[in-house]
């Protein structure tokens, strides 16, 4: 049987398994909105760890990191993985646990509910809703695009003899084209999210996180052995790594100031709406402990093999010369898997890559629906006028609309997964001062938050447009004063600074929040 067909069958079986999982989760669904969106606050430590980790590890982590290591070398790990290990857990600890406390105490399901209460302002919600949805769209796009690329690369040749899915590039000829692969992935995720709600999403996330971590390590060992060609695994590692050029085993081509300023990007998790929702599913505050401790270690387990695979792909002969010259970064990992493993293993590993992608898409789909029903429908139409069941259906309808928009955008040429991810995360990171100040600075006012949000949105859009809407993937702000300084920084620094200054200055010159609000959100000695 054609190798592409074998891989396609394995992918199909895996997708069926997910649908079955969603079906079983739906049997526990009580029908209430709280159960659908927050799993009735029933998620324990292990499931919380796996679901939060699976949600934060996207196509960006697997496909993007391998592709970027292929282009730029090992620096990508320090830029985003080790920094995320420190800063993600910091956000879980200083933001997540506190938000969980307020969420349980006052019954919040979304960030906007919290901000409206804390800032005594309805307008904050009106402003934040479209911005958060707009920032989630490129995040969704990363997953949708990458899934299409992965499926096409891995099934190439499956229908070549029948002349179906012809492609000028022989590496993709006869493979399921991205418009079909992406559509199938969207449909599967939509179905299990619709059936299982947050409980189904958490189960699917945990299952898929285990799948991609285990299969990722298996891939790594198999490819290392194949590339090394020797008997022992360690010897094989040594053989292949010794052939990598110094430009990829060092950070010689990377700017130190850019590397430093990348530190701000992982702060984005503090403002991810889908993570906010995951935090609220926790059974109790102690459920967070495993996530805080193990998140950095899990990042290491996933990223180190991907980065090594990326730099190994630069060794002459590992990828066919014609392919290596024009391979898109997003296709490096699937190409390595396809070329260096058997069809069955390749199919399983493809399922692992898709697992990482889908384990983020599902939470994002659910969170968009949650924001729409809670922050728009319930807030403006009224809880008493729309039943719980009707709200669940409205949430589903809105999710389908957003997914359709994302899918439509994915049909056009887009920047690399890595570049798009960095812009998307920069936007969320720029909003970090707002959530941090809302939790720890009693002087933050609604006007201050609104100014900060507008400054973030305006500066983000200005710089995004300057980068050619992401097409200049190495875009940075050059600070150049002749004979004094000359360095480049990531756009996130400027956007973050705009938010911070606008928020602080406006808050300090406007009237402080009322005593009752301060009493609600701050300990008595602080108010």
């Amino acid at each position, binding site marked *: 049987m054609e190798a592409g067909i074998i891989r396609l069958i394995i992918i199909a079986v895996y997708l069926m398994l997910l649908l079955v999982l969603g079906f079983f989760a739906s049997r526990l669904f009580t029908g209430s*909105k*709280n159960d659908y*969106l*927050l799993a009735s606050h029933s998620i324990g430590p292990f499931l919380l760890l796996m679901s939060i980790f699976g949600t934060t590890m996207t196509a960006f982590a697997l496909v993007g990191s391998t592709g970027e290591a292929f282009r730029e070398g*090992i620096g990508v*790990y*320090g830029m985003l*993985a*080790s*920094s995320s*290990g*420190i800063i993600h*857990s910091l956000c879980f*600890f200083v933001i997540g*646990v*506190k938000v*969980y*406390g307020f969420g*349980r*105490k*006052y*019954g*919040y*399901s979304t960030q906007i*509910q919290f901000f409206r209460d804390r800032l005594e302002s309805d307008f904050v919600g009106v402003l934040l809703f479209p911005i958060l949805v707009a920032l989630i769209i490129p995040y969704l796009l990363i997953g949708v695009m990458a899934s299409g690329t992965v499926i096409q690369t891995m099934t190439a040749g499956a229908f070549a003899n029948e002349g179906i899915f012809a492609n000028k590039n022989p590496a993709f000829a006869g493979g399921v084209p991205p418009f079909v692969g992406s559509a199938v992935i969207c449909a599967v995720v939509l179905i299990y999210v619709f059936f299982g709600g947050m409980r189904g999403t958490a189960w699917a996330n945990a299952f898929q996180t285990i799948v991609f971590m285990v299969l990722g390590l298996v891939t790594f060992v198999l490819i290392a052995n194949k590339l090394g060609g020797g008997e022992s695994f*360690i010897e094989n*590692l*040594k053989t*292949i*790594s*010794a052939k990598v050029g*110094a430009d990829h*085993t*060092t*950070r*010689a081509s*990377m700017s*130190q100031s850019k*590397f*430093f300023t990348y*530190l701000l990007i992982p702060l984005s998790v503090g403002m991810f709406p889908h993570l906010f929702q995951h935090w609220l599913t926790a059974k*109790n*505050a*102690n459920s967070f*402990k495993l996530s*805080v*401790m*193990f*998140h*950095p*270690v899990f*990042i*290491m387990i996933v990223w*180190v093999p991907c*980065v*090594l695979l990326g*730099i190994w792909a630069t060794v002459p002969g590992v990828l066919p010369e014609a392919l290596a010259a024009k391979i898109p970064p997003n296709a490096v990992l699937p190409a390595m898997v396809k070329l260096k493993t058997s069809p069955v293993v390749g199919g399983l590993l493809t399922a692992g890559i898709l697992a990482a992608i889908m384990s983020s898409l599902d939470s994002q789909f659910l969170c968009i629906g949650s924001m729409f029903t*809670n922050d728009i429908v*319930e807030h403006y139409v009224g*809880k008493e006028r729309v039943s719980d069941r009707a709200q669940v259906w409205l949430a589903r309808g809105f999710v389908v609309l957003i997914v359709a928009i994302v899918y439509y955008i994915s049909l056009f040429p887009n920047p690399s997964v890595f570049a798009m991810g960095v812009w998307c995360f920069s936007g969320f990171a720029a909003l970090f001062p707002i959530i941090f100040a809302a939790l720890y600075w009693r002087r933050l006012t609604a006007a201050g938050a609104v100014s900060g949000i507008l400054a973030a949105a305006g500066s983000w859009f200005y710089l995004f447009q300057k980068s050619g809407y992401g097409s200049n993937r190495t875009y940075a702000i050059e600070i150049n004063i002749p004979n004094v300084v000359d360095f480049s920084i990531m756009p996130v620094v400027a956007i973050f600074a705009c938010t911070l200054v606008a928020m602080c200055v406006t808050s300090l010159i406007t009237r402080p929040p009322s005593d009752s609000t301060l009493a609600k959100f701050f300990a008595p000695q602080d108010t």
Partner: protein
Amino acid sequence: MKYVIWTMVLILLIVHQDFWNWFDNTLVMGFIPIGLFYHACISLAAGFTWWLATVFIWPKDLDADNDPTQESH
């Protein structure tokens, strides 16, 4: 202990900027570039630091504040 742990977090952020490994292409154990190995160690150190945080400075009484009868908004 609070100050010790927050100092450790700060140190992690500082040592993360390892400009001294920038051009070093040594392969640790013969296969892992030192710049990658060093940052993998930072990931492990971060896990250890956050473990200390969960043991020594975890906020108390968070669950006691919650009223289990409240449903979502």
